[in-house]
């Protein structure tokens, strides 16, 4: 009877470094995905500078700033949750993760109100006010909805990812000696923050 010979370099063992490498590779794809949109933004803004400036007055700088602070804080809490788990404090880690999720919800709620206000003013493509805008401003709003919308989708996905990790810490599957999944969820979350770090000045701080 053949006993199963195991290679020293077997791919079947838990390999945290492989998991981390894989996550970073995935982040590169996300950067290039959003990069395409940033590229379109840069081109159209350089061709329609005045229109972009005018259109940006429809956004509220202080709301945008608040959302920025919310996301930056959430990056801190998720980073701290990793430190906590590395120190063996799973309770604190879970608490910090819940704070991160709370921040995500606040961000999404604020976004919801911002978007609703735009719809009420008829500023979505196809609506009356939008149709009357000059071309450059139309492009601004097309990009605004697409980019913040896609970003919001990633906030939701990131939030779900973190909730899954919370469940796994509770069940002990993610722990002090096996925490790459937590770190990966943190990396994904920081990516979401990174994208907003650029979205904020490009849409809210044109002046």
């Amino acid at each position, binding site marked *: 009877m053949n006993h199963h010979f195991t290679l020293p370099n077997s791919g079947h063992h838990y390999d945290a470094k492989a998991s981390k490498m894989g996550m970073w590779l995935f982040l590169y794809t996300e950067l290039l995905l959003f990069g395409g949109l940033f*590229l379109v933004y840069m081109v159209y803004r350089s061709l329609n500078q005045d229109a972009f400036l005018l259109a940006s007055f429809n956004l509220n700088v202080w709301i945008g700033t608040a959302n920025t602070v919310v996301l930056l*804080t959430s990056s801190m809490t998720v980073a*701290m949750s990793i430190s906590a788990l590395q120190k063996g404090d799973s309770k604190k880690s879970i608490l910090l993760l819940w704070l991160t999720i709370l921040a995500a919800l606040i961000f999404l709620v604020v976004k919801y109100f911002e978007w609703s206000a735009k719809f009420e003013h008829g500023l979505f493509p196809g609506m009356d006010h939008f149709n009357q805008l000059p071309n450059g401003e139309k492009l601004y709003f097309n990009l605004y909805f697409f980019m913040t919308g896609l970003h919001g989708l990633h906030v939701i996905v990131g939030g779900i990812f973190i909730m899954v990790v919370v469940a796994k810490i509770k069940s002990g599957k993610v722990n002090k000696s096996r925490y790459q999944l937590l770190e990966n969820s*943190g990396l994904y979350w*920081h990516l979401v923050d990174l994208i907003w770090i*650029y979205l904020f000045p490009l849409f809210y701080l044109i002046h």
Partner: protein
Amino acid sequence: MKNQHSTEETHAEHITSYREHFGTWVGLILLTLMTVFISVFGADLRTITVATALFIASVKALVVAYYFMHLKYDPRIYRVLMTIVMSLFTSFLIMVILDYLTR
């Protein structure tokens, strides 16, 4: 040896302290306030404002990447790869804009 089976060592076991994370957060908030104030109260120098805003955003991004995402303490290859990826994107941007500028 690269090809070890699973071990406890994942990173060089560097654990960032809560203090360091908080400090990073303070820095990011300050940079945010700075960029907002320059925009709201700053001069009407349009191009410089764009450049400044993007510059400050990039500093914030670097801070998030280096500290929160642990790049400062990770093996060098990760910083190298990040540079390559961002350079690739920047080249696409430059080459496309060059088309528009020279039409």
